[in-house]
């Protein structure tokens, strides 16, 4: 168990280190130098001041030395300031992270809650019209551009029918319940985006499991179809599903970026997008690393869930894998 944890934490650290290096280098290649922007927006500053400021902040050094300096300061716990908000980056990121976790959590739960019954229905009736309809729905779900789906939802439910707000968050101090109407369309968009993939995997995992000997045994001993499918089938089919859902966290976050941007939902994805476009490099860098960390932790938790769900898998087996 301890060896497994050590290995995973080490692996996550490596991914984060590589990611921070790559993103730092890429951000060094972005147009618009923060000091140049500062000079352009302040007539009191001369180009000579700019040079001095760049030296002061170490911006005249080669990129890799700047990375080393940044890493040293970051590891001591100082992640720096946001240029546009003029506040420590974590003060801005953490509330946004909370909003994103609400969005991701609700839509993951909804997607799983719909995908599993759909997958079971399709798997127990292969080649039937119902199976065909679910299959068609899945293909539509993986083929629809998520931002366009959001656009259609806004057109339909906000502009035409006027049932729900087209975007925004509601009053900042309102409780979650008061914000619910602002969550419906973003959660629905994100749910549909991941639902189709989950359903396809649920179906194929279930079909695989239903061909196993222990299902035949369960039927032979006179167990009813419901108990066979749910008690013996679904529990085993959940295992591959856990892996798929875990691997999907990264694309789920990408989906959150689109959804948040479309609905003006103040989450991390929108913040990262805005900070990249707004030349707020430090915020973008830390935001991307935080997003990566969240995704990695999601993967990690799914691995643990896998071991807990499957008594055949021990942590020792995970270590060897």
């Amino acid at each position, binding site marked *: 168990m301890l060896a497994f944890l050590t290995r995973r934490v080490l692996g996550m650290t490596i991914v984060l280190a590589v990611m921070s290096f790559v993103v730092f280098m890429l951000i060094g290649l972005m147009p618009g130098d923060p000091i140049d922007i500062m000079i352009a927006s302040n007539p009191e500053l001369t180009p000579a001041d700019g040079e001095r400021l760049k030296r002061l902040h170490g911006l005249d050094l080669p990129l890799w030395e700047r990375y080393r300096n940044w890493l040293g300061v970051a590891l001591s716990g100082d992640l720096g300031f946001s240029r546009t908000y003029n506040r420590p980056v974590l003060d801005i990121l953490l509330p946004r992270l909370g909003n994103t976790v609400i969005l991701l959590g609700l839509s993951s739960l909804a997607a799983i809650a719909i995908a599993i019954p759909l997958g079971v229905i399709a798997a127990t009736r292969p080649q039937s019209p119902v199976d065909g309809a679910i299959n068609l729905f899945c293909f539509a779900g993986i083929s629809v551009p998520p931002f366009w789906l959001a656009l259609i939802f806004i057109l339909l439910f906000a502009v035409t029918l006027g049932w729900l707000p087209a975007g925004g968050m509601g009053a900042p101090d309102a409780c979650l319940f008061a914000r619910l109407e602002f969550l419906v369309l973003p959660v629905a968009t994100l749910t549909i985006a991941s639902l189709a993939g989950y359903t396809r995997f649920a179906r194929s995992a279930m079909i695989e499991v239903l061909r196993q000997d222990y299902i035949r045994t369960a039927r032979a001993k006179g167990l009813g179809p419901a108990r066979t499918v749910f008690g013996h089938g679904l529990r085993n089919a959940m295992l591959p599903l856990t892996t798929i859902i875990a691997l999907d966290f*990264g694309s789920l*976050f990408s989906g959150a970026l689109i959804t948040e941007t479309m609905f003006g939902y103040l989450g991390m994805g929108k913040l990262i997008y805005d900070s990249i476009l707004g030349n707020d490099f430090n915020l973008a860098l830390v935001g991307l690393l935080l997003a990566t960390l969240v995704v990695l932790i999601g993967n990690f938790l799914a691995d643990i869930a896998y071991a807990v769900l499957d008594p055949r898998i021990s942590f020792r087996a995970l270590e060897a894998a």
Partner: protein
Amino acid sequence: MSSIAPLTGAAQSEPPLFWLRLRRSRAALVSAVILIIITSLALLAPVIEFLLGVDATRVDLFNQYAAPDSTHWLGTDEAGRDVFVRLLYGGRISLLVGLVAALGAAVIGTTIGLFAGYHGGWLDTVLMRTTDGVIALPLLPLLIVLAAIDLSKLGIPEAIANSEMASLYRIVFIIAIVGWTTVARLVRAATLSVRTREFVRAAEAMGTSSAKIMLRHILPNVVSPIIVATTLSIGVVILLESVLSFLGLGIQPPIPSWGNMLTNAQELATRAPALAIWPGTVIFVTVMAFNFLGDGLQDALDPRSVRR
């Protein structure tokens, strides 16, 4: 002669079997027809433009948001340009990006998969751990960073970095360098099983170089998963291109693409909902067709796959 006949017979029976299997999948066939129609319309865009007597680039502020009529089949957009012909020109770009970026990703993925699967050992571990890492990353924010970097700071000549086509080259490149993971995994898995076959062992025993074994003996036997994964990834690439262009980071106007035709659609949603509906529908239909085609190809190419 008689000993050769059954061999050629077997070889000749392969394509018909493949077509037979593909024809069984109605969805794949319908998709293929739809894709052929969309591609030919896009290729014929200048001809259609001429026949309709419209100019897709001409801004006509006296004719904004025109309703569909016999000249402007789908009406005009916020700048008075013909929506239908712009969709066709946008299709050229979106399909081109989809095809080229998917092929680029397939080349990268095949190379990585072949090396990992054939050499095994630490190389396999490093390559596959990297692949897993890339799969787990939140790719869209990373793509946005890649799409936002200043090409001239990379040492690319200003003339190319600031040219109209730069956004096209860039998007093909950045999608290819993040999109290779599926192909790499499939090719590695197929390579692992081909590697142990007798003809590979024989080639190794004859002292054939590993590069030649990978190219001449393994690659031809792992073509099926490559074709399937590439077909499926064309759809994914078109989706990625559309979202990046929509966010203003992909194909840059005045070049039309299905994604950047939607850039203004959100602000115009109340005024002209049709402008939001058409490009999105075309993306949706095209991507779905590529997905159905890929699925059908998978069933047709993989003799072990049973239609379940």
